[in-house]
């Protein structure tokens, strides 16, 4: 491969990384809002958050991307820059999966903690911020790590819309060189390297957060976690946990 083509691939990596960062931030924000809203005491808030989760978990990420790129501009007159359209579609889809993780982790906190907060007359917001979240967040990291890998894999979908990410630049190089084996092997290796890096970072984060509440990361994956994983992360997600 010539240096010009490598430059194209590097640009693709940069676009993929940008898209990954933006959409994971949006997904995390949406996941926390929707996940916390599903534990709200008003039924209408719970219902709306549940509706959002079901709709976005039920549909395919690629269909959502098509919808945001083609239907939003016509139906609502919102023409988004491709980067933001991709961020919106991926962030909302994976945020819906993430909200299940947030909800599950909040539910898994010992109820005595919640009751202790009530006994000390904390407000609901104080209970959430000072008691529930600090204990729930470290537990969310391993499933979030799996979801992040799924999101990384999902970013390749925007190449279908002609956005110049890693997969798209790979296709361009293939057209230029007519050499599929080499370029697609490189492409897969690059994605794998990014995924590997992400799992390392997330594992470090888990260690740090769990140390903050006096726990250590669990060794290996428990059988029960493995069997309920698709429910929790929607998309599979063996990720790097094993």
């Amino acid at each position, binding site marked *: 491969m010539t240096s010009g083509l490598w430059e194209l691939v590097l640009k693709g990596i940069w676009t993929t990384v940008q898209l990954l960062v933006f959409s994971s931030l949006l997904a995390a924000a949406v996941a926390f809002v929707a996940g916390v809203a599903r534990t709200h005491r008003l039924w209408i808030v719970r219902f709306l958050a549940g509706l959002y989760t079901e709709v976005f978990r039920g*549909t*395919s990420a690629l269909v959502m991307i098509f919808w945001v790129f083609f239907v939003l501009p016509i139906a609502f007159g919102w023409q988004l820059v491709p980067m933001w359209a991709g961020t919106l579609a991926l962030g909302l889809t994976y945020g819906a999966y993430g909200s299940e993780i947030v909800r599950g982790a909040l539910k898994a906190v010992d109820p005595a903690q919640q009751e202790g907060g009530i006994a000390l007359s904390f407000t609901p917001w104080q209970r959430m911020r000072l008691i529930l979240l600090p204990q729930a967040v470290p537990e969310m990291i391993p499933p979030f790590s799996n979801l992040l890998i799924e999101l990384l894999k999902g970013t390749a979908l925007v190449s279908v819309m002609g956005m110049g990410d890693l997969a798209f630049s790979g296709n361009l190089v293939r057209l230029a060189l007519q050499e*599929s*084996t080499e370029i697609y092997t490189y492409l897969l290796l690059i*994605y794998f390297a990014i995924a590997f890096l992400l799992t390392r970072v997330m594992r470090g984060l888990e260690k740090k957060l769990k140390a903050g509440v006096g726990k250590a990361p669990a060794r290996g994956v428990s059988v029960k976690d493995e*069997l309920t994983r698709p429910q929790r992360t929607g*998309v*599979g997600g063996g990720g790097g946990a094993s």
Partner: protein
Amino acid sequence: MKWDWNAVDGFMPYFWDGLLVTLQALVLGSLISFALGLVWALLMRTPSRWVRWPVGVVTEFVRNTPLLVQLFFLFYVLPEWGLTLSALTTGVIGIGLHYSTYTMQVYRAGIEAVPAGQWEAATALNLPVARTWRVVILPQAIRRVVPALGNYVIAMLKDTPMLMVITVLEMLGQARLFSQQHFQFTEPLTVIGVAFILISYLASLLLRALERRLVH
């Protein structure tokens, strides 16, 4: 926002064609992933690390790289190696292979969940290894993992639109073709979006019923 029911009417015949292809890919892909996942899971339990190590690396690699790029790989590289398959076959193999690396984890968990006493009883009865697996361990393990496998079928359903990029005309492919020919994007894309939500919702209801029957 304009909604044109005529466009929906016009799209429906193509929709059914696409649905058929989607379901075909889903069923075949599921079968491959169930079978191959079991093979990986069993290989990971062989005593020799010369088997376990390569299988572990390959499956980890397949699991952590995008299905989309894997599909491109299969679609463009296999013909270079002299193996020409139809687009649908390539797609089915791609999806099946990708998800087998997930189902393998499920099988592993199911096998580990079989109580140690079952193994010991099989040893005490002097059952050969193959028979222990076939009549003692696997029936119990698989019963436990059926709901988890079903969840992956739903996940697979949501990944079938990717087959569009290798020219398979499944639901999304049909919708894209129709919208490009008629310049109506809103209706076909919304129809298939709703179809996906409906199918995966129905499938999850079905699964929950199945789970109740099998587990309790």
